[in-house]
């Protein structure tokens, strides 16, 4: 039920981001979702791609520090209060959201949100028990 996300350390300088996208583009790897967290000095680019192993390989070859993290992709009803219903559930369970970002594509009528929780397994359990659709990795990479 977990989705593999890769993350890349980037210095805050011109051309930093494009050197990553160029490497991925050359390797014909498709970016499915992304978020960029930054401070004044550096940033962390987080990506969901269609081929995790290959993406990590080509980025390592280019000399980037690349991390792999398990995140959770959840279908969120595309209506007012959709996201809130998920967050309320997790707050009730004492689960913390480290960060989250939205997926580019929709899954049917629903939006897809990527979450990084402090306790991933508990979160998946709670979401499933409460009728939320947690997407499998293979599904997400191919959306």
């Amino acid at each position: 039920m977990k989705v593999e996300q890769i993350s890349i350390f980037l210095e805050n300088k011109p051309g930093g981001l494009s050197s990553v996208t160029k490497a991925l583009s050359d390797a014909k790897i498709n970016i499915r979702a992304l978020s960029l967290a930054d401070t004044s000095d550096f940033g962390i680019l987080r990506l969901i791609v269609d081929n995790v192993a290959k993406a990590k390989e080509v980025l390592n070859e280019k000399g980037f520090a690349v991390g792999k993290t398990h995140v959770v992709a959840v279908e969120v009803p595309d209506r007012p209060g959709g996201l809130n219903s998920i967050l309320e559930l997790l707050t009730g369970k004492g689960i913390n959201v480290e960060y989250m970002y939205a997926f580019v594509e929709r899954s049917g009528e629903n939006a897809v949100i990527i979450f990084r929780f402090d306790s991933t397994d508990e979160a998946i359990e709670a979401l499933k028990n409460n009728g939320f659709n947690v997407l499998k990795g293979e599904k997400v990479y191919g959306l």
Partner: protein
Amino acid sequence: MIYNEEFETLPREAIEALQLKRLQQVVSRVYHTVGFYRKAFDNAGVTPDDVRSLDDLKRLPFTCKQDLRDNYPFGLFTVPMSNIVRLHASSGTTGKPTVVGYTQRDIETWATLMARSFVAAGLSKNDIIHNAYGYGLFTGGLGAHYGAEKLGASVIPMSGGSTKKQIMLLQDFGPTAICCTPSYLLYLAEAGKEMGVDMSSLRLRVGILGAEPWSERMREQIERALDITALDIYGLSEIMGPGVAMECIEGRCGLHIYEDHFIVEVIDPATGEALPYGKTGELVFTTITKEAFPLIRYRTKDISRLMPQVCKCGRTFVRMERVSGRSDDMLIIRGVNVFPSQIESVLLEIDGLEPHYQLIVDREGSLDTLEVQVEVREKIFSDEIRELQNMEKRITKDIKDYLGVTAKVKLVEPKSLQRFEGKAQRVIDKRII
């Protein structure tokens, strides 16, 4: 065990009396045989007769590496070439090498001091010593070799290089001790492991390691990888070669300087002023028994401090702390002396950090700033900003705690800092003073 117990355990007053007698002899000899010294003494307004106590040493001028270059190759020798039996030369990274000469008696003294060093490392004639210091112009190989033979140990004159052969001999000949640079021993340990050799089950029990600066952290790595005791040896070709000072296996805390042959001082590298025991500064040596090439107050550029407390091994010679850096690398940041090597040891204390770093010194208004750029490797990379910021804070705090200077830490991409073959240039000083 102590090799020359009668000398190595002399009471302080006796050491000093011996030093003064020998100092007076050598000062008089260089003054009367070497034009360079006569001129330098005359310029400083001193004569050999002015040296009446050890304290008078301070009145004599320093000798530095440039003086050796200016008198290249044999200009500072005090004996005719017919009395010289050996020449060595330092690798001159810039310009001409520095050349040193030895008489038969100098070679004998050197061998004795190396034998002392081996005994201080717990070795005896029953040991087999694998000598992986380079043989040749470099003093390491032959210096250790003659000392091992003097002791009566079996020496394997392996020299450097041929890693696979080194590992084969370490397995087949079963040496109990190895001499080489610490970084080469670590390299051998890794290479052996890759060849499928259990490097911790060799008969090796002690490493006599020197010829480059290293850290306590590196000592731990070596000791763990090979299951040996790693000891520090100090020397420089100008003074004699390896065996000027040696760490004893009993104390493992500082290196005993062979004070019956060398007088050591620690000076403030900026002012040249002699510093008291315990203060960190540049090591200065005067050789008091060398025949061919004595040196008066030679500035080593090596940074250390002296520990006068008597060691538990019984040796009374003063100890020097492991060399922590070179005075030519010293930075003064807001009045605090900072050596790149100190920053390096702070970084190496943190798990997952590698010694790839760059220091940028600048001045904002009237305030010096120090930026430490550190490469982010996957071991310390996290996808959470908070974790990386904690890493920055931790490095800043450790530098502050250890060096007393506030640095701005900047994480940079892997392999983005320049790599150096040979001497690393870690510092970019942008200050216009």
